[in-house]
């Protein structure tokens, strides 16, 4: 339809509000409570416009266009209306600095005042010079506030981890509350009290930890004022530079905007758009700074001299390591972390094959989801992408606390739930997921394969044979012939009614998406579980979305699969080590090595001092991820570039550089890379990152956001051979006893550094979630502002 805004005629869809339509055409209407990811709220009244034929000034943020509508966004009347509105908002906000004539000079001289306990004006405020409200005051030309100033005198809340809440600065725009409810599904905060007493808070005034906050930081990022401020950055000046990185912690690979101040990371916030669309999780949002600048960083190369590690030059360290490794070529093992960039993994893998003679780099995380899928021949069109998630009609999560391990995948799933999708949880879940589930199926540890088989069988019994024409159906049916739903359900630890309920939901249709991750792969017989799940997906027409564990699990898989003989698995490596076949070990990934196992030579290449360094012969300091550039391949196969934000700490060097230097010194040809770009060019030329990967292709996968890639959907939709899990009549089978319990902290590491070690705030959060304790009993800084006498 056509509408006229400020005299210009525009074609609009009618689905966007007048505010959004105007913005799309370069007309920026002042607004405070509006946010592109949130439903209209129309509380601040700054976005008012004039509409021909209508009385008064309707807010443009919740007005939808009508054919021929004539809108005026700027007039003297509107300007004065907006100024009056803003003046009212400011009367309850520390406004002295906003209207002070000394503003600029004073700002320059009062840097230290920013650390004050309470904010009585912009010079005290963490948002100073990066504040949306300040900008609006400037833009609307408000230079006085014709009301007596009021300070609400609320205690500044400082006893939660990561960020501080000072609701004395709050203008009640509601963005934080809405993002928490509408986007994150956490509902940790809401408005408490009404009218002039209204304030953002938690139920019963509990701490955020106790209220179930995920510390995702979404509220901090949408707040237009200094009310919500990151503890580590709030006293600091605004950033000097920003760069785009990809989060190194999980397989989603959120785009992050890394702020840099004085050559150090100040903070990281989710980038708009892209895969994560402005969202991240507690790890990516709040721990990068502590991790990259951890005091546990290795800053200089070290080699063993007289039984002790001593700092030496790179030349000496590399010569020493190269000699030691060369002498043991063919008898060396190599492991690499799947949190390294593709460039690093590629060079390390080549280094392993061509210099160490060990057949490539073994992923230090052990078997990944993608290894299992490919081992079982499960590739192709059954696998989905993150973008397909919001469109799902039914989402089943198979024993994975997604909102904890892959919180941004949860955000996409929650988007579907908001649109009416059914959420079904089998086994492990975390905080917000459970609240929104329409069915929670109980599960014993290790019972997941039994559950999946039970659901398949229940569906067969229902006679939903839509899959009968799919290759392998007869064999599939036969494999379930002897199965009994109630016995399988019992073995799984699930109620039979729930199993049948789940089967009904899957028969009901709507696009179905299955989410699964490390918990399934962590079972004693992972391949069996994955195959059963694959078959259930084929049977129901569901899309599988494997939640790859680490930031470059897919990259690692692609790089290893390019070669005819893949690198030894972790268990194969362990076996050789146990048999004494290995004389040397090269660790470029975290590894717990409780004994020396007859090794003669150990090299550790890492960013952090770790336990293995204690008896290493050489320790080579590697740059941390924000200190080098490179690419990750995320769980849906997008190849994305992470920029360098800060220089490498100390003398540390990118991983690819260290491996190439060693390879050169060991006489291997073709390692004269000068920068990561050359390695990427080689990867592109050889098409390494564009192989059809299991779990990373599928119908309807949108073009990846980053560079390159494609990962075409090869492979067929077919049942695969899967055996029934061992029957168990009652009690725990031996399988159950061995099965790992879902570990909350599994994804809480970067290389060998535990994130909880780097960030006391995260340690506090994880600890209180584990113990259920709301907050350690301590005198907290909150008391500084707890009003009045004591």
């Amino acid at each position: 339809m056509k509408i006229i805004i400020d005299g210009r005629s525009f074609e609009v869809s009618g689905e966007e509000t007048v505010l959004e339509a105007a913005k799309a055409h370069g007309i920026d209407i002042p607004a405070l409570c509006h946010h592109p990811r949130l439903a209209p709220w129309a509380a601040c009244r700054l976005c008012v416009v004039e509409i021909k034929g209508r009385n008064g000034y309707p807010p443009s943020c919740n007005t939808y266009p009508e054919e021929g509508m004539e809108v005026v966004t700027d007039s003297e009347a509107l300007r004065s209306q907006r100024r009056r509105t803003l003046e009212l908002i400011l009367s309850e906000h520390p406004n002295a600095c906003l209207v002070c004539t000394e503003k600029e000079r004073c700002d320059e001289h009062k840097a230290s005042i920013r650390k004050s306990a309470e904010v009585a004006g912009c010079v005290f405020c963490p948002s100073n010079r990066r504040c949306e409200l300040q900008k609006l005051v400037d833009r609307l030309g408000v230079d006085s506030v014709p009301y007596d100033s009021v300070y609400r005198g609320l205690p500044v809340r400082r006893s939660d981890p990561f960020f501080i809440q000072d609701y004395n600065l709050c203008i009640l725009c509601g963005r934080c509350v809405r993002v928490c409810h509408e986007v994150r599904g956490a509902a940790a905060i809401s408005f408490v009290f009404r009218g002039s007493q209204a304030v953002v808070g938690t139920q019963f005034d509990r701490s955020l930890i106790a209220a179930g906050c995920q510390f995702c930081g979404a509220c901090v990022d949408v707040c237009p004022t200094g009310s919500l401020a990151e503890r580590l950055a709030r006293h600091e000046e605004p950033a000097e530079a920003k760069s785009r990185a990809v989060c190194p912690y999980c397989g989603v690979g959120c785009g992050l905007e890394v702020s840099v101040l004085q050559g150090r990371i100040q903070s990281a916030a989710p980038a708009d758009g892209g895969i994560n669309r402005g969202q991240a999780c507690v790890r990516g949002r709040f721990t990068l700074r502590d991790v990259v600048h951890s005091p546990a960083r290795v800053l200089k190369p070290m080699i063993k001299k007289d039984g002790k590690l001593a700092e030496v030059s790179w030349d000496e360290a590399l010569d020493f390591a190269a000699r030691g490794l060369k002498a043991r070529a063919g008898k060396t093992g190599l492991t690499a972390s799947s949190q390294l960039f593709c460039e690093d993994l590629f060079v390390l893998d080549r280094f392993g094959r061509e210099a160490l003679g060990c057949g490539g780099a073994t992923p230090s995380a052990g078997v990944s989801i993608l290894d299992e899928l490919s081992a079982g021949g499960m590739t192709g069109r059954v696998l989905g992408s993150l973008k397909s998630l919001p469109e799902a009609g039914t989402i089943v999560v198979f024993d994975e606390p997604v909102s904890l391990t892959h919180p941004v995948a949860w955000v996409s799933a929650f988007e579907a739930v908001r649109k009416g999708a059914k959420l079904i949880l089998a086994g492990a879940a975390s905080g917000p997921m459970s609240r929104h589930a329409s069915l929670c199926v109980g599960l014993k540890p290790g019972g997941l394969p039994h559950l999946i088989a039970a659901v398949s069988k229940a569906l067969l019994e229902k006679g939903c044979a839509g899959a009968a024409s799919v290759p392998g159906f007869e064999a599939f049916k036969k494999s379930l012939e002897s199965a009994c739903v109630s016995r399988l359900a019992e073995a799984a630890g699930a109620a039979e009614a729930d199993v049948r309920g789940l089967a009904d939901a899957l028969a009901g249709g709507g696009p179905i998406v299955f989410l699964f991750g490390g918990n399934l792969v962590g079972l004693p017989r992972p391949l069996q579980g994955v195959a059963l799940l694959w078959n259930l997906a084929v049977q129901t027409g569901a899309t599988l979305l494997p939640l790859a564990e680490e930031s470059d699990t897919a990259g690692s898989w692609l790089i290893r699969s390019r070669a005819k003989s893949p690198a030894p698995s972790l268990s194969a490596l362990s076996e050789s080590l146990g048999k004494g076949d290995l004389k040397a070990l090269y660790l470029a990934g975290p590894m717990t090595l409780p004994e020396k196992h007859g090794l003669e030579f150990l090299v550790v290449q890492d960013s952090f001092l770790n336990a293995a360094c204690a008896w290493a012969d050489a320790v080579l300091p590697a740059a941390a991820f924000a200190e080098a550039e490179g690419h990750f391949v995320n769980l849906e196969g997008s190849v994305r570039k992470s920029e360098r934000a800060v220089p490498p700490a100390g003398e540390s060097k990118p991983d690819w550089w260290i491996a190439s230097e060693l390879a050169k010194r060991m006489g291997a040809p073709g390692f004269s890379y000068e920068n990561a770009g050359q390695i990427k060019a080689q990867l592109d030329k050889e098409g390494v990152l564009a192989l059809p990967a299991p779990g990373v292709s599928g119908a309807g996968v949108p073009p990846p956001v980053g560079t390159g890639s494609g990962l075409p959907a090869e492979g067929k939709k077919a049942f695969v051979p899967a055996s029934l899990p061992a029957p168990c009549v009652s009690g725990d089978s031996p399988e159950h006893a061995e099965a790992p319990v879902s570990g909350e902290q599994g994804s809480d590491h970067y290389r060998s550094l535990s994130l909880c070690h780097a960030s006391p705030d995260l340690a506090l959060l994880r600890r209180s979630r584990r113990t259920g304790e709301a907050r350690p009993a301590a005198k907290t800084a909150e008391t500084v502002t707890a009003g009045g006498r004591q």
Partner: protein
Amino acid sequence: MNKILRRERLVPNIHVLEVHAPEVAAKCVPGQFVMVMPDEKGERIPLTIGDWDREKGAVTVAFMAVGTTTHKLALMSAGDELPVFVGPLGKPSEIGKFGTVLVAGGCFGIAAIHPIARALKEAGNTVVTLIDVKANYLLYWEDKLRKVSDSFFVSARDHKFGTTHYVQGKIKELLDGGLKADRAVAIGCTYLMYSACEATRAAGIKTTVALNPIMVDGTGMCGACRCAVGGKTKFACVDGPDFDGHAVDWTELFSRRKSYLDDEMKSLCHWERSLLAPGVSGASVALPLSTGGAQLAPGA
């Protein structure tokens, strides 16, 4: 050890501390300060004496919570003990019969200026007091100050006072309105003192300020409190803290006061985190670290 008799938040950010310190109370005079430590591990910081009660043996200071040490102080309560509360230090303010004296104060200076105004009044001067606050809710000790002033003014960025003047604007307004001041005294943040001096310079009114460079010992030993006055290097702790504001090298003072800003921020964050998560592993441990990797179990 000195016992805290009272600790109270007067207005946002500003707290008053009354401490049992009979030796200090017996000797102190206007313009002097004390060195305070909230705990044995922390730093010593200077705070200006705002009032005293010789009979009770009590000394009162007002402080602004701007960093680690002042935050720690703000957490203390009556009955707590201060390991260090030494003084009185610094030269007494010059008190004489000058005629009309303009006394200007802001933030913690509202308290710091009080004994000086009182002494000036007792010495027979006409005391014109000007207090600067950002907003009405930051004004404290108004009664105490009115009692020792002949006239009392406020400069503020608040509709309630009908003015958006900063201190120098108000001084100019008073002078233009006919105020004949023979002397001026200003205490508050560096910027307030600087601005007050700028306003009195043209009228040639001698203006005393109490300089607040970073101090470590407060007894003339360390040199941390060096500042340039009239082209000469002075130690603010023993040569001052009062100096002729028109002779102070303000540029140098501004820059010296923020030279440790980075460390101060780190210290505050560190302290706050240590309160938040006592016993939770800190970020300062070296070997050995827990690893995130799989355990390499031979033969597995």
